[in-house]
């Protein structure tokens, strides 16, 4: 019985971490499906979201709503701006060029933050109403976890509706298949790509705020590792496949939590090594990912 409670408790942690990865991996996978670009700067959008929220959240309830919604909008706009300034000029160049540029964009973003807010980690606290501990029978649940899982679920459902019901979303999926054909049908692929970057930024901002809330500390480099892990999640599910990215994210979240929770304490130091060993294993046995198709 105790064991069952322990497993349930850990599953909640896995679900929470998986939700943050899902919010991050979706954007990476969406951008990849459109441009074949591995956007190394994507993880840094999490960091910007968290810092924007830190700057805005001061006390009353109204500002708390603002501390989530304004960063969401700001990072969405920033994501679109980065696309316009850095990625659009090099769109027709080979993939490797775009990869290097995204790497440089990432270093620029991180160091602009080092220059302005310093590399010193900051304390990051969500309002007390969102961090209270709920006791549910034998389970102890942090409200932040509920909020994280809940907001991820809502946003993912909204995104699914967008790409299946809204013209722009349908155009986005079409662009992933064949940009030239979409252009011939009279749709503006530039607008589609820009919107994709905006959505990716907004989701990452939410992920960053939740990540900050869970760990209680934020710094300019906090997005680097989650960004890479979200890429692992996207590859795990099938790069460019949106439901795959979500599935991969939750699989990865559970794998990480149970790796630490079920193995002897000595193993927990190897948590990050396990994630990237998993990436290499996936690339070896099923490079198209869990839901991807070959070709």
């Amino acid at each position, binding site marked *: 019985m105790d064991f069952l409670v322990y497993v349930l408790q850990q599953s909640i942690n896995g679900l929470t971490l998986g939700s943050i990865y899902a919010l991050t991996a979706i954007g990476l996978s969406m951008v990849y499906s459109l441009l074949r670009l*591995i956007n190394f700067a994507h993880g840094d959008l999490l960091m910007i979201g968290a810092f924007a929220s830190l700057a805005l959240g001061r006390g009353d309830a109204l500002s708390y709503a603002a501390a989530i919604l304004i960063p969401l909008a700001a990072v969405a706009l920033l994501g679109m701006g980065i696309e316009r300034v*850095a990625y659009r*000029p*090099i769109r027709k*160049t*080979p*993939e*490797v*060029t775009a*990869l*290097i*540029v995204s*790497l*440089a*964009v990432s*270093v*620029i973003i*991180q*160091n*602009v*933050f*080092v*220059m302005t807010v*310093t*590399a010193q980690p900051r304390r990051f606290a969500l309002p007390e109403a969102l961090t209270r501990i709920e006791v549910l029978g034998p389970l102890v649940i942090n409200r932040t976890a509920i909020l994280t899982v809940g907001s991820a679920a809502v946003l993912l459902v909204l995104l699914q509706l967008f790409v299946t019901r809204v013209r722009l979303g349908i155009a986005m999926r079409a662009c992933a298949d064949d940009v030239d054909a979409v252009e011939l049908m009279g749709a503006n692929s530039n607008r589609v790509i820009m919107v994709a970057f905006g959505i990716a930024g907004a989701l990452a901002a939410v992920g960053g705020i939740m990540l900050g809330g869970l760990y209680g500390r934020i710094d300019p480099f906090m997005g*680097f*590792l989650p960004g*890479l892990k979200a*890429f*692992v999640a996207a*590859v795990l599910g099938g790069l460019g496949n949106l439901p795959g990215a979500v599935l991969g994210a939750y699989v990865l979240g559970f794998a990480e939590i149970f790796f630490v929770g079920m193995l002897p304490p000595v193993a927990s*130091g*190897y*948590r*990050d*090594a396990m*994630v*990237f*060993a998993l*990436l*290499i*294993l996936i*690339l*070896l046995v099923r*490079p198209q990912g869990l839901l991807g198709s070959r070709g």
Partner: protein
Amino acid sequence: MSARRLLAPASLGLFALLLAALQGRLDDYELRLVNVAGINILLAASLNLTNGYLGVFSLGHAGFATVGAYVATLLTLPASRKAMMIPDLPPWLMAAEWPFLPALLAGGAAAALCAVLIGYPVLRLRGHYLAVATLGFMIIVQTIAASLVSITRGAQGINGIPPFTNLWWTFAAAAVCVYGIWVLDHSAVGRAMKALREDDLAAQACGIPPLRIRLIAFAAGAFFAGVAGVLWAHLITVMTPTSFSFGLTFLVVLMVIIGGPGTVAGPVAGAVVLTALPEALRLLENGFAIRGLVVPPLFGASQVLLSILLILFIIYRPGGLFGARAVLRVSQEDA
């Protein structure tokens, strides 16, 4: 013909004289900087094998350097120091006190072995998967180095490494690496690498085995990265899991791209320029005053400037300083 034949030995001889002169005259800081420049030449020239000649983008150089440095350090560290710092080592490793050359080769070989293990699954896929897989490899290496306390002493790091590295070792290794690449550039394997970069389907149709050629280039690059790590550890005499991090990888990528990917001379020039430039930019980061105008310290500013430089180069001069034409121009369709 005889004049051309004499050119290489003559320039090597001149270079050796220059080194001998430098060795005596420079102070410790300058000597270290020149050594670091040599190590950077080694790193940039070897990264150029994959990122330039092969057109497959690796970000694993820091990881390979870390592997090489730890392997060699454990082999050269005096037994008495090992007994004090890492008493749980297996007896044969505890007793090992290798001379520098075999340790250097062992460090390189260990890095090359890791490259084969990573490269085998990843090099069959599209070029850019390697970027993330090798970055992941760097994190795996750092995680293991930080957690395997009984062998690496964890985050505390190993200090008191014998200071074997000097200008001779550094530049001999760099010369071997650059010469090796020059030979490769003119060999069948080198042409096969460039053919795969330009059009891998056409190259395969000509009977070039893509995986084998890519593995050779990737492992050779990792070997020299490992050697560079060994040299660095025996220069600084301290090794920690984060001695070589993503920042180093990024700097080496810059060296290759600014110098000229897929050329022999480019990365060498890039390494020299980008060893000197951050030293100059450090002035900027620490703040300075001109005629009463005080510029406050701006940490991170040099990284921003270097990144902007990288973007400008890749858009306006993708062939780098030495590239006659853009090697990164070629698209990497399905591999």
